[in-house]
């Protein structure tokens, strides 16, 4: 998905590093990577370390890091283009839950043009780009982490560990607790739901499901609006 942009911007000094947040690792992420035939590093994060270290709470999310190793934009929604499958008509015999999911997904805001144009500007102009943030602003935007969110991270790590060990029944209460402690962390919820149902539909194992949880907040709030110059201000 990012290969085209990488080819454009790599000669100008940008490297793209993709990280697949997948508890099952190459088993589930590998075929997508193989199909994309990336020339950039394509990493596998079976323990969702990137969530913990960079504050990722949904995917896709991008983080910009300068030549000196300093973050100039913390985790935020990152789309290279609009998803083509969302623009096609729905097959008439589609499962009703899937049809409802796709209908809701069409209402989700993605801002690929704004994001990729901002990225191009930063690659071109570096620290002079209005899209490069100060260290103070990077910290401010990196997300809150109080006791609940730290606890959620610990329960989620334990849940994943137990599931990978084949101890699914012992893992479930920890997935549930992670969701209770940090209900707005979609990586925790989606990773759990997909283990129970391939469409992230309601299951006996976990509370909530993708469609119900998205409808609760409104599809337009699924990703925060990009907080960058140009366009209307966040919340607008």
């Amino acid at each position, binding site marked *: 998905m*990012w290969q085209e942009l990488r080819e454009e911007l790599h000669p100008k000094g940008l490297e793209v590093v993709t990280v697949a947040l997948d508890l099952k690792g190459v088993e589930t992420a590998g075929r997508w990577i193989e199909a994309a035939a990336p020339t950039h590093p394509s990493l*596998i994060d079976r323990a969702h370390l990137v969530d913990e270290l960079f504050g990722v709470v949904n995917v896709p999310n991008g983080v910009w*890091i300068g030549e000196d190793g300093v*973050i100039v934009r*913390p985790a935020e929604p990152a789309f290279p283009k609009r998803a083509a499958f969302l623009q096609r008509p729905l097959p008439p015999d589609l499962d009703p839950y899937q049809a409802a999911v796709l209908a809701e997904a069409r209402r989700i805001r993605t801002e690929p043009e704004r994001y990729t144009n901002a990225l191009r500007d930063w690659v071109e102009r570096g620290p002079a780009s209005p899209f490069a943030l100060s260290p103070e602003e990077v910290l401010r935007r990196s997300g809150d982490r109080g006791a609940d969110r730290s606890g959620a991270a610990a329960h989620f790590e*334990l849940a994943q560990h137990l599931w990978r060990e084949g101890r699914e029944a012992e893992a479930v209460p920890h997935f549930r607790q992670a969701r209770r402690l940090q209900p707005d962390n979609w990586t925790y919820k989606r990773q759990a739901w997909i283990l129970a149902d391939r469409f992230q539909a309601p299951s006996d194992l976990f509370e909530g499901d993708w469609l119900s949880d998205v409808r609760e907040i409104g599809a337009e709030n699924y990703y925060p609006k990009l907080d960058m110059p140009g366009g209307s201000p966040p919340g607008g």
Partner: protein
Amino acid sequence: MILTEPRVRRDEFTARTGWRFEPEGACRGDLCVPLPEPPGEWLDAGTLAGRLGMPLVHDEAAGLWCLGPESHGRVLQTAGAPELTLPDWRGEPFSLSSLRGQKVLLLAWASW
């Protein structure tokens, strides 16, 4: 960090969290937090949790502990990118810091 007993090896803790151990205590960047006794090869997980503001979740039936990230208000304590070493999809280890000198777009995605 997943633990099979309520203590953690000092070098593994440093690799995961960035906290180093000095005569003054646990240190990261300019900050040093005093510890009740000089750190040895193994560190008590409960002490670290209390002093550094980390949750320590214990699942007695599973026989496991998990020491979570600090709860100091913000995810990032510094704008310096945390070190991240993960396998690439062919299994070769890759460290983010190996790209120092280039701009990097780090992209988190998932098959789900």
